[in-house]
Each structure stands twice: as C-alpha cells, then as structure tokens.
C-alpha cells in the first residue's frame, strides 16, 4: 500500500478502507470497528470509544440500519441511497471522503458508516463524551442576574448564547486551532453590528496560530494581541457568563468560544468594560452610577493606596492629619522593620495567601485562608513585626482588589510597582509610575479602536456608560456599536 496521509482518499473497497483507517489511527485501542452486512452489502461502523454515546448509537444508527434489512439484495449505490435518505436521519450528518476528514469527524464524536463500493462514508454526530453541567460562575458573581456560566463543551456554550439571542443575525463560525489538538473554536458575532474589517482581521490572526495544541484562552491571546508582552492590560477580555457575552455581541464585539475552556474571549475589550457588571442593568440608574464610583475607587485603592501610604509616611508626613500621623508614628516605633520593608513583606504574603487559596482544595481552602490571614496578621502585629495601621491598609487593599476580577493580575503587579516607586522616590516616584502606567494603557488599541475609548478619544454618547448607566429609554434609542469608538 502506498504511503497514507490525511489527504488520502477513501477506497471503494471496504476492506482496504478499514486497513487504511486502522493504520492511519495507529491501531489505537479506543478505535471501535463494527462490521456487518446489509442487504448483501458489506458495511462497517467506525467510532471512538468514549466520544460517542453507545445508547444513542444504537437508537440512531444500528436500529435504523437493521430496519432496512430484508431478504432482497441491493447494489452498493442503492444501499448508499437508502442509508442517506431513509435510515441515517440526523441533523448533524455529513460525508467524509479522506482519511483526514474521517479522523476529524471520529474524534469529534461522529460515527462513520462505510459501505463496500462507496468512496465516501456517512458521518452521524452522536457526541457522548463526558462534559460538565452548566454551573454557577466562579469569578464573576452577580446578585440579580443569571447564575449560568460557560462549560468546557463549545457546543453547549453555543447553545447558551443562542438561547439568549434568538436572531438569525447571530452567526457562529467554527475554526480548528492547534495542529495536534484540532481544538474547535467558534467565532460568534452579530451580522450588521460587527465591523467586517475587524472580523476579517480576527479570523486572520486566529488562522495564524501555529501551536500544536490550544488548550485554553491563554494560548490564543498572544496571537490576538499585538505586542502582548509589552502591554500591561489586555485588549481581549474574558468572561465566563453567557449574558455578558451576549451584551458584548449586541454592541458589535466579537466573541470566541474555545472547546475545553469555560470562558469566552471578547474583543475588542476596552478598559472601561472592566468596571462593568451585568448587575448594573438590574439596578436603578442612580445606584448604577454609585456602583461605578465604588469600582473606580476600588481600583485606585487596590493599585495605589499602599504605595501612596508609604510615600506619604516616609517622604511627606506633613500631608497627614496630625492625630493620624501621631498614631502612625507611635505604631511604627514599636516595629523592628522599616515601613517600606513591612509593606513589601505583607504584600508578598498577601499574594502567597491568594495563590494558596486558589490551589488548595475547596474544602480546606477557605479555612486556611482565613486562619492564615487572621493568625499571621494578628500574631505579626502583637509581636511587633508590623504595625496595626499597616494591617488596616493591607486589609482595605486586599478587599478592594477583589471588586475587579478582570484586573486581578494587573492590580497585583501595579500595586507592587507603586510600593517600590513610593518607597524609593516618594511622590516623584508615584507620579512617574502613574504616568508610565497611564501611557501604557493609552497606547493600546485593537483594530483601530483605542483601549481608553470612550474616555479618550472622548465620545459624548458613550461616556454615560462609563460613569454609570444610561436609563433604559435612552439605551433603547441608542444604536451605537463598538466601531464608533474609533
């Protein structure tokens, strides 16, 4: 037999085809080949164990096939016609003509039905691989909105989005990413809302992914963003909520669903979106404005408060109210380390605790976090390692940092930079750091849409959504999409 590869066409002879398939799959143990004869014609059903549901295979494939059996014989062509028009009834049915397409389909949970004399196989989709049920979101919790989150199966995720946007303009395009993994990646967009140029650019970037495997969103991010190593923030956001993705799609954004990851990528993702929550649409307008203010304040507290505290106490104590300063001075007199060192140590410990609480099993994770924080913190203050005011600052910072999960990584890094800058150079260092970070944020753009829009460039129509939320009457009249942010 000649050398076989993914482009090798199937042979009309069943035996040859089955030999080719077995050889192409390397005699893998989970390949299941079931031979049978139907109306005098030799047939075979090929599938991969674990990828198909045995019960449904029986119902949708074998039972209809057996119903065709009678004492008359048929030619391969007639049998093929009967199979396609009378037996194998399924909405998810296609034909495979090459070894490569056979492999793709069989690993996607399809059953291939071969007939002797036909140079193609009928593939019926009967996915039965184990998947996780739709669960609650873990990071993006909200009070007054849906409690469903994406799952690992891309098809399920597609259905979660489709259920919420019942419009024919919602399109999904499937792309395979990863040379070995062949991971199914669905691009979701709404026709007429999305900028075609941006869509083309995105597809081009996805097709340029040269990795062997794509096992999650992080694998695709560097290909979707330009200069991702140099930028602090990401122009591509993630969400685990179908309702958030739908809200973004309506604004003309593009969603990317990846098989195996319970997250969707959203692009373009703007800085202001990190401060949004689906709860804003469930609250009154004035409360939504208040919540936005709280989130902005939390961002500043989480990023800059410790650094500013160190700068103020060490370099500009005259800024502080006298009684506050006296309390701080009295507190610091009893500690053995300098304030700067204390702050660095405590912040690093905070990151250690945070990392530990993610990695530990859920059963003991929370208890260890609380005990670690309370015991370590309390004992450290009583032994004079750190001062009480510092613990208050750290507590406020830690709490504030959990308000914005979208910026968790960036906040940890920026916080450390501010502490170092404030500790080394006071408010000069704080200003320098602030300008650098702002410049880094402002330099980003994806497909011509600046990351800082609608703040800069200023877009009057959309600024209300940054500072709060428009009332629903205004939202109903508002037809703006993300393309207008250019």
């Amino acid at each position, binding site marked *: 037999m000649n050398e076989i590869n993914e482009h090798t066409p199937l042979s009309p002879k069943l035996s040859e085809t089955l030999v080719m398939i077995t050889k192409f799959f390397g005699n893998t143990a989970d390949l299941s080949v079931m031979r049978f004869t139907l109306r005098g014609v030799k047939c075979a059903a090929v599938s991969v164990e674990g990828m198909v549901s045995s019960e449904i295979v029986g119902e949708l494939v074998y039972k209809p096939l057996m119903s065709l059996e009678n004492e008359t014989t048929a030619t391969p062509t007639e049998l093929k016609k009967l199979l396609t028009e009378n037996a194998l009834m399924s909405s998810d049915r296609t034909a495979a003509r090459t070894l490569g397409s056979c492999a793709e389909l069989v690993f996607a949970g399809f059953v291939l039905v071969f007939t002797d004399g036909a140079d193609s196989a009928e593939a019926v989709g009967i996915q039965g691989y184990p998947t996780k049920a739709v669960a609650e979101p873990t990071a993006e919790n909200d009070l007054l909105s849906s409690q469903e989150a994406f799952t690992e199966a891309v098809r399920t995720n597609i259905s979660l989005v489709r259920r919420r946007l019942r419009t024919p303009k919602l399109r999904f395009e499937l792309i395979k990413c990863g040379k070995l993994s062949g991971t199914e990646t669905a691009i979701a967009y709404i026709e007429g809302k999305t900028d075609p140029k941006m869509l083309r650019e995105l597809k081009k970037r996805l097709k340029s992914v040269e990795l062997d495997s794509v096992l999650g969103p992080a694998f695709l991010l560097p290909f979707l963003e330009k200069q991702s190593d140099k930028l602090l923030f990401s122009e591509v956001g993630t969400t685990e909520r179908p309702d958030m993705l739908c809200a973004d799609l309506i604004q003309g954004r593009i969603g990317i669903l990846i098989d195996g990851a319970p997250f969707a990528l959203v692009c373009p993702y703007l800085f202001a979106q990190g401060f949004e929550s689906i709860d804003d649409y469930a609250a009154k307008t004035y409360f939504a404005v208040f919540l936005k203010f709280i989130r902005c304040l939390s961002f500043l507290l989480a990023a800059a408060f410790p650094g500013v505290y160190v700068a103020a106490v060490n370099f500009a104590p005259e800024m502080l109210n006298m*009684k506050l300063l006296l*309390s701080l001075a009295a507190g610091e*007199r*009893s500690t053995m380390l300098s304030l700067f060192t204390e702050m660095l140590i405590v912040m690093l410990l905070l990151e250690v605790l945070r990392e530990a609480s993610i990695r530990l099993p859920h059963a003991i994770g929370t208890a260890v976090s609380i005990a670690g924080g309370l015991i370590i913190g309390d004992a450290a203050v009583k032994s004079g390692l750190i001062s009480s005011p510092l613990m208050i600052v750290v507590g406020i910072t830690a709490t504030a940092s959990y308000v914005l999960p979208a910026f968790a990584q960036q906040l940890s890094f920026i916080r450390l*930079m501010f502490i170092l800058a404030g500790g*080394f150079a006071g408010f000069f260092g704080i200003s*320098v750091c602030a300008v650098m970070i702002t410049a880094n944020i402002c330099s980003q753009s994806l497909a011509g849409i600046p990351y800082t829009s609608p703040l800069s460039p200023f877009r009057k129509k959309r600024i209300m959504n940054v500072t709060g939320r428009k009332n629903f009457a205004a939202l109903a009249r508002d037809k703006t999409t993300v393309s207008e942010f250019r």
Partner: protein
Amino acid sequence: MFLVIALMGLMFYSTGRPPEIADRVIVHAVGVDVNDNGYKVTLQVFSPEGSGSDTPLDPSKPNVRLVNGEGRSVAEAAEECRRKLGGELFLGQNRLILFGKNIDLSRSDELFGYFLSASEAFLNVDCATSEPSAEKLLSVPVSAGSVASERFVSMIRTGETDGTVCGCSLTELITDIQSPSEMVMMPLFTVDNMNKDAKKFIEQESPIRLSKSAVFKQGKYSDSLSPYETGIISAVSGRGKYFFTQSEQNTQLIRVRSRELKADEVDGKLCVTVHLNVSPAEPTVGECKNTDSLTNELTDACEKLTDKGYAYLLGQELHLKRFAPKLYKDSPCTSVTYRVNIN
C-alpha cells in the same frame, strides 16, 4: 518598568534615605526667647505614652515633652535640640511659633531662616507672643488631649470668632516686619501664677490666658491692644470676620458678612471708606445698637488707632498701594484716614 524602578532605587540609595517616621522627632510647637547667649529655643515634641502593646498611643495622656537649646540663631539652637533628642526634627506638623516678649523681630535672618529653609514647614503657621516667656508657656502642664499645641491654636481660633484676637501667620509676620512701617500685631498669651496644689488642677483653672494683642514696632515690643481694639482692627483690615461692641447694658458680637473698600485722595492724603455689611453673630439680651451708632463708634475707634500710629494695622500700606500708588511711592508712610460705614 523594572529598569525604571532600579534607577529610582539607585537614586534613593545614592542620596541617602529619608528618615523613617519612627526616627523623626515631630515638633508641635516652637518657643523662641532671648537670652545672653542669643536665643533659647524650646521645642514641644511628640513623645508617645502607650497604654498597652496593642495601643501605642494613649489619648488620655499629654504625649509631649519639652527640650531646650541655645544658640546665636534659632537654627543653631534647634540644632542643639536635635543633638539632645537624637533624631531628625520634623517641622511639618508644627502648629505654633511663640516669641517671648523681649524678642527683636527685626533680626529676620536669625529668627526666621530656620523655618523658611525647612521644605516641609507650614508657612502660614500661627505666631504669637507670650508673657513672661515662651518657655514658661510651653511648660504649662496639659491635663488631657494627645496634642498639647492644638490647645493654643484652638484658643486663637476661638478668640477670632469672639472678635477678641487677630491671628498672625508667619508669612504675615515676615511681610509686616519687612514693610516700611515695621509694625507687627500678634496674639499675646499670658501665664498666671500656677496653683501649686497640682491635685486640684483642672481644666477650668488653666493659667493660660489669651486676651490682648502685642504690637511690635521696629521689631521690639511696644504696646498691647485691648480685645476691643483688636476686633476693630481685624474687621476693618479684613483679617477677621468678628468684632464686638460694648455698651452700658451688654456686649454685642457682630459678624462681618461682606466688606467693600472705596478710597479718595484728598489734599495729598488718602481717605479710605470701609463698607461693612454686618449682622449680629448671636442673640443678645437687651437693646442692640443701630447702624448709625455702630458707624460712629467704629469710625471713632479707627481715628483713635490712627492717632496712636496703628494705621498700618488697619491696612494702610496695602490700601496706599492699591488706591494711591503714587502717594505710596513718594512716601510709604503717607497717612491714611479711615471711615467705616455699617450696613
């Protein structure tokens, strides 16, 4: 980003680190007296007295201590204090500068150079005079409150709202002493003889009094002004918003709501009319004065003050510069007459 932080770290270690907050000596109040060696500086500094390991600062205790230093200038004397205390003096929270009555304010460099050279110092810090000496005043024990100097400042603020005191900041002091008139007015603290029985010492029996204002001419103490005169000066000059009037029946506190100036040049002299829009600051028992009698009373008071040579305190120099710059240029001490019009 890391390279920048490294550069900043290099900068930090190359110049030397600023002192830690725990190593700083926080100065609350500064007293300056004259002695044979030049100047004697008394610093009231923060000294925490804790009440337990979890509470390093006990607000029920004074939390201050005094330290003295002598030198040919205030800077030298402060340096001696620093050596005694063993830490970096921090003037950023200094609330008050007290000058002894015998001080010569015309020696600006010796007196004020120290405060002006400290970048963290508050330039609008309250200045006052004390009798008999600044050291004695600062030594008066404080029964409660974690910050002793705040008591002096609050007395000045209370006096301003009572119309009995006119505050003086360091910038005003330096500007006034460097003006052609060299005239300065500052609140005057006095210390009564203290009750030797310390057990009976309670807040109501505090020996510190703030009632008059001291006037310095050419740097030296010359006179004291009564609370009534001080109130008139602060209202007419615009430095205060309250003054009081006295009659046989009662004392009435008046609040100045707005102030407007008009001036005329008559026979080489400037006549300034100060229009004050006033209202009673608090309900008064008995008959209140009408606007005409108030107008006459204030105009007479201004005339008396001008006759005593205190026109500068009413704002003579500023009004000359504003309304009659040519007159001021010819003679900075051109006399100015004041009329007050009450609405």
